[in-house]
């Protein structure tokens, strides 16, 4: 065995998976996991832990995998993460734990993500649950939103003995894990639902179909329903559009709508009661992970799919692995290209898109080279569907109905990083609602910080 090279992970063949919604990556088996674990040199001053937003004791769990004690490995991860099977699949490990791995200096870093996934999957298959709190303290905490931030915050508080209720606006728990990330990257029933059930097994209650700010306000939760602290993890759900002509034509969708129909409402299944547009030629505008998800979904629904992105490949915000998978499956990348108008037929249906070629100029405020239009380079693409994947912003439903809750100019809730404290006493926040659209694991880190903040707050309250 070559210690410089990671044990390769098995995947579905690109040509096969382009036609189904089954998971792309098949994961390690126990032998492969133990072999990969043996590449970890168990650094004393482990850098990988510093790269993990929820600070999993990575060398300790890998040590257990190496020895074949998978259950022990699972309990170590569970101390820090409520959603290991999710994180093992969707975390950008290359820029976090694995990015810091000493092995990576000369050769491949240890496949920490794939090992985490293996441990979590093994625990699920063997019906191992996280250990719940030994004693309850009876204090009620409300968590708004059942996405990664809310589930993490709720799980940590339940483990500390709090009586936690999560309020979810949709009919299903999971937030972006169920409406945003597709089945082929993150299986819903097998993985997401089971991890949520694990959080529930810690004593967390989930009340669905409640829209905070509409069904009930935060002040009512505190004053009428006896919650002593509130965590807001409501995410960044509002889609952005470009504001170009033709954007309201039939066949133009936000990535949110397209993915919600396919993922949450299962519209990819022909028998679903919810329809989805099965286009023949689709352009996805944008270059992030959500754009890749939308593109790969459209491909699986039978379309020829183009990613239209105004900068070059180097600037694509999506994970390298996602771009690689998308290319393998046959997604066409039209880079340095920017839409200027969506063309419609006489019945308001999309018939094409006018674009202009771009080149990279001087770096802008983000440090990336600014895309500049090349004069007289306009051209038309023939299309029947356009999916706008330009990012999202926080929903103002909560901030606009909660007095004393400060927001910034992007409508994000202002909260400190250390404990998630907001400008309103007893109210904490974290995840995309605070940062704007980011990653699952960063939201989990924020949920964790807020759980600490809430615990501190309610502990000192008690001694007053």
């Amino acid at each position, binding site marked *: 065995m070559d210690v410089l090279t990671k044990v390769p992970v098995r995947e579905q063949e690109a040509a096969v998976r382009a036609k189904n919604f089954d998971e792309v990556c098949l994961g390690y088996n126990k032998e492969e996991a133990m072999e990969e674990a043996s590449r970890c040199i168990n650094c004393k001053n482990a850098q990988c832990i510093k790269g993990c937003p929820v600070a999993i004791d990575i060398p300790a769990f890998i040590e257990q995998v190496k020895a074949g004690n998978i259950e022990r490995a699972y309990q170590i991860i569970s101390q820090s993460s409520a959603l290991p099977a999710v994180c093992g699949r969707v975390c950008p490990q290359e820029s976090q734990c694995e990015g810091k791995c000493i092995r990576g200096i000369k050769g491949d870093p240890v496949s920490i993500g794939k090992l985490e996934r293996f441990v979590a999957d093994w625990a699920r298959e063997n019906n191992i649950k996280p250990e719940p709190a030994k004693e309850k303290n009876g204090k009620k905490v409300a968590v708004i939103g059942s996405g990664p931030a809310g589930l993490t915050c709720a799980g940590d508080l339940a483990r500390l003995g709090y009586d936690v209720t999560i309020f979810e606006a949709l009919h299903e728990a999971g937030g972006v894990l169920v*409406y945003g990330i597709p089945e082929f990257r993150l299986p819903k029933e097998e993985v997401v639902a089971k991890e949520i059930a694990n959080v529930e097994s*810690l004593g967390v*209650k989930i009340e669905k179909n409640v*829209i905070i700010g509409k069904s009930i306000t935060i002040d009512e939760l505190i004053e009428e329903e006896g919650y002593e602290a509130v965590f807001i993890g409501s995410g960044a*759900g509002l889609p952005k559009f470009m504001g170009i002509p033709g954007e309201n034509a039939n066949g133009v969708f*936000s990535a949110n709508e397209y993915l919600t129909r396919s993922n949450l409402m299962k519209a990819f299944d022909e028998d679903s009661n919810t*329809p989805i547009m099965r286009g023949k030629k689709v352009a996805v505008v944008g270059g992030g992970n959500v754009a890749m998800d939308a593109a790969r979904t459209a491909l699986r629904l039978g379309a020829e799919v183009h990613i239209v992105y105004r900068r070059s490949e180097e600037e694509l915000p999506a994970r390298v692995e996602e771009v690689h998978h998308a290319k393998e499956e046959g997604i066409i990348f039209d880079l340095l290209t920017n839409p200027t108008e969506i063309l419609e037929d006489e019945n308001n249906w999309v018939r094409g898109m006018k674009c202009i070629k771009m080149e990279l100029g001087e770096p802008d405020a983000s440090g990336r080279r600014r895309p500049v239009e090349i004069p007289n380079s306009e051209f038309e693409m023939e299309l029947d569907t356009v999916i706008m994947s330009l990012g999202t912003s926080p*929903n103002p*439903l909560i901030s606009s109905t909660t007095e004393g809750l400060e927001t910034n100019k992007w409508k994000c809730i202002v909260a400190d990083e250390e404990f998630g404290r907001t400008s309103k006493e007893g109210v904490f926040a974290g995840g995309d609602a605070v940062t704007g659209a980011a990653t699952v694991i960063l939201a989990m880190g924020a949920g964790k910080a807020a759980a600490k903040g809430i615990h501190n707050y309610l502990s000192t309250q008690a001694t007053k």
Partner: protein
Amino acid sequence: MGALCIKEMKKGMVKQRMYKILEAKELTTNIYLMVVEAPRVAKNCQPGQFVIVRMDKDGERIPLTICDYDREKGTITIVFQTVGAETARMQALKSGDSFHDFVGPLGCASEMVSEDQDKLAKKKILFVAGGVGTAPVYPQVKWLHNQGIAADVIVGAKNHDLLILEKEMEAVAGNLYITTDDGSYGRKGMVTQTIQELVDEGKKYDLCIAIGPMIMMKFVCKLTKELGIPTIVSLNPIMVDGTGMCGACRVTVGDKVKFACVDGPEFDGHLVNFDEAMKRQQIYKTAEGRAMLKVQEGDTHHGGCGQCGGEN
């Protein structure tokens, strides 16, 4: 892992509360009324708002207007017309059954709810309801009635059989004018004709609130613009989540793009681009037609209908 732990686990897995149907009846052909237990919605809803329902675990999310609410009993009354496969499935629900999901209140309350009461009392308001649009008009007229304000109401229906909520409306409206397209009951003709006649008789209105089919609202707005009566309409476009997330319900109002679910559903009718809104309602027509045929004909349908794209 003691007994406590098992109990806690069970508690955590308690099934989601169901939304029980206390009353279900067919008001007229294809229009149904249901009274549903939904205490959280009933506690905070206002006229003008709506709910989203899902009949079972595989159901589509269907936005429906609130026809009435009882805060003490914790119930919401919904009225819907079977227009597609999903509502056709929903009509089979009986008293004692439950909705799997029932969420709200969604959207903004009608402007009048937050308006200065003295100013509002001085306004002469005309409601124009068309077909099943009578249902969302009712709570607004009732709300005004409870504030001691009598509003005039025009209700339009295709024919006498399709007229709904006449008695209820009569109890809360100032003057109630009923008109049917075929003249089988009340006046004969479209609602716009009645508006014109009332104005010709010398009636003056400061505000018109029109709710009904998109095409009706379009023509009401065309007329009230000429007559100089500010008009509010309530839109019911395609939507998925109803909280601002999907953007399916976007509509052009003046020179701005608005989301009906969070910015509406009520808008200044003189600024709404109805032609675009009507075309946007057609997006899933083919898919919906196919689903509808599946419900009506089961496996016996094999294409040829021009709708479904099936064989031949």
